[in-house]
């Protein structure tokens, strides 16, 4: 990695920690939300960016993580940290299950994307109807601010934990991309037949990506539950998180470790700015997101990370 990129990353990290420690509550709220989306997007990036399987239904993982955490605590009195661990495992499990059902049937490309959307919608409707999720009224977690409960009196502390999760997944993604598993993901993304001919079990590789992706996005759901302490089916399984996680990756830079983080921060900053400027036009930020998606795919297919790298190599063409 180039020095300039390292300096840029260190500066961003410093600014984020600064906001978490000293920023006003509104700024911290903004940052926590953006980082939770970044974490969900990191999950999407592993499956969509590295393994080439585009999903429209990452809400299925986000919501499962969120609900498992919330239900275990509110209905069964399970400790919040253990609840989150179970939420992440449940995300991996639902990822493997959805993957097994769709990939075994040979679904690829847009068919896979549509079936994931369908799974997320089925879960949303089921969660809206089932008594255990609180149905339409949703689930409210008891406010009890103790570290043992994964609730903190200081928003900044929680923000730092979310940031730590995002950085941990950043490190994990960078590492996986350099291993045999990462090469298998890339091979399956680029050409399934060639991958098979080289001894790669394509189904198992895709299921690995689904499990990992599901776990990471479910972790984002767990963190959401712990921060907002309220959940209903439209938050947990709503299409907003599916859309934002893929949008963050595409805008930030697909199949780059830092892409989802850059994308989520940029999108949320822009969303907030639009809401401030445009005032009370409902959904104006979504209109803007749509335009950005079109612009990104047309003019910057490698996203902001790609633009940054291109600018770097223009400045030092021999490096």
């Amino acid at each position, binding site marked *: 990695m180039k020095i300039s990129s390292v300096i840029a990353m260190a500066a961003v990290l410093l600014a984020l920690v600064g906001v978490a420690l000293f920023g006003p509550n509104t700024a911290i709220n903004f940052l926590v939300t953006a980082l939770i989306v970044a974490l969900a997007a990191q999950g999407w990036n592993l499956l969509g960016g590295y393994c080439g399987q585009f999903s429209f239904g990452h809400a299925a993982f986000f919501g499962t993580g969120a609900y498992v955490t919330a239900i275990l605590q509110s209905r069964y009195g399970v400790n919040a940290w253990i609840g989150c661990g179970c939420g992440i495992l449940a995300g991996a499990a639902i990822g493997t299950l959805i993957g097994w059902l769709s990939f075994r049937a040979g679904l690829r490309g847009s068919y896979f994307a549509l079936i994931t959307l369908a799974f997320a919608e089925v879960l949303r409707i089921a969660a809206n109807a089932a008594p255990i999720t609180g149905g339409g009224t949703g689930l409210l977690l008891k406010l009890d601010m103790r570290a043992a409960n994964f609730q903190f009196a200081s928003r900044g502390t929680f923000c730092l934990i979310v940031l730590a999760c995002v950085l941990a997944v950043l490190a994990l993604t960078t590492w996986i991309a350099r291993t*045999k598993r990462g*090469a298998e993901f*890339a091979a399956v993304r*680029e*050409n399934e037949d*060639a991958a098979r*001919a*080289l001894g790669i079990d394509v189904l198992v590789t895709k299921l690995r990506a689904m499990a990992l992706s599901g776990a990471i996005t479910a972790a984002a759901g767990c963190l959401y539950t712990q921060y907002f302490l309220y959940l209903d089916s439209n938050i947990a399984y709503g299409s907003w998180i599916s859309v934002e996680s893929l949008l963050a990756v595409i805008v930030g830079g697909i199949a780059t470790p830092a892409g989802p983080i850059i994308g989520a921060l940029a999108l949320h900053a822009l969303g907030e700015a639009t809401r401030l400027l445009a005032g009370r036009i409902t959904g104006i930020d979504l209109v803007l997101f749509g335009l950005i998606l079109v612009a990104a795919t047309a003019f910057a297919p490698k996203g902001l990370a790609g633009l940054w790298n291109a600018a770097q190599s223009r400045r030092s063409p021999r490096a």
Partner: protein
Amino acid sequence: MTLLHVEGITKQFGGLRAVDNASLSVPPGTITGLIGPNGAGKTTLFGVISGFIPPTAGRIVYNGADITAHPPHRRARSGIARTFQIVQPFAGLSVVENIAVGAYLRHAKRADATRVASDIAHRVGLGAMLHQPASALTVAGRKRLELARALATAPRLLLLDEVLAGLNPSEIRDIIPIIQAIRAEGVTILMIEHVMQAVMNLCEHVYVLSQGRMIAEGTPQAICTDEQVIEAYLGHGAAGQMQAHA
């Protein structure tokens, strides 16, 4: 003793019998050729041997074991590597990354896989292009990449599907010694080839497939004068005409 035994393979696509009760054997350490006119079913038979196409009837015996039901990745792990007639590069990856995917099959560590990949790239003449994207290679370069990737899996049996097609004579001259060197290392080769110069130079034994049927086998020299083979290529009565002119 044979390394690969193809027994009575039939493949029916709807009303079309692409391969019809075809059998062949490949002894270890040899180069065996599979030739035949366009549409004879050679690539289909290759697909059956490598596990990509399930046969309608017949069985594949490799190294003494029936592998007819094994999926392609399992055959690759047991030492059968193939190239694709229509090249299938990982277009978004660099040359060395492409080959490393094959090398990872036997080497779990990145450093080992990359080292093996770059050694093989040098052997097949791609040493100067290690870090270029595979999509930047010429046709000849992509054929070499197919060969390199298959070699990287350290195969016992290498299935080459027209690795010389689309190359010019000087490129063919460059690749023939590479194939001979692969055999000299003990890799058994079964190759589909149209370039007769290569078949005559490389193969010890040749099978001829026509309209799905195995119509002849023998040494390359014997095959070239076989009446049925000449007629399969040039049409009914061609053998007689050729003899009349000779």
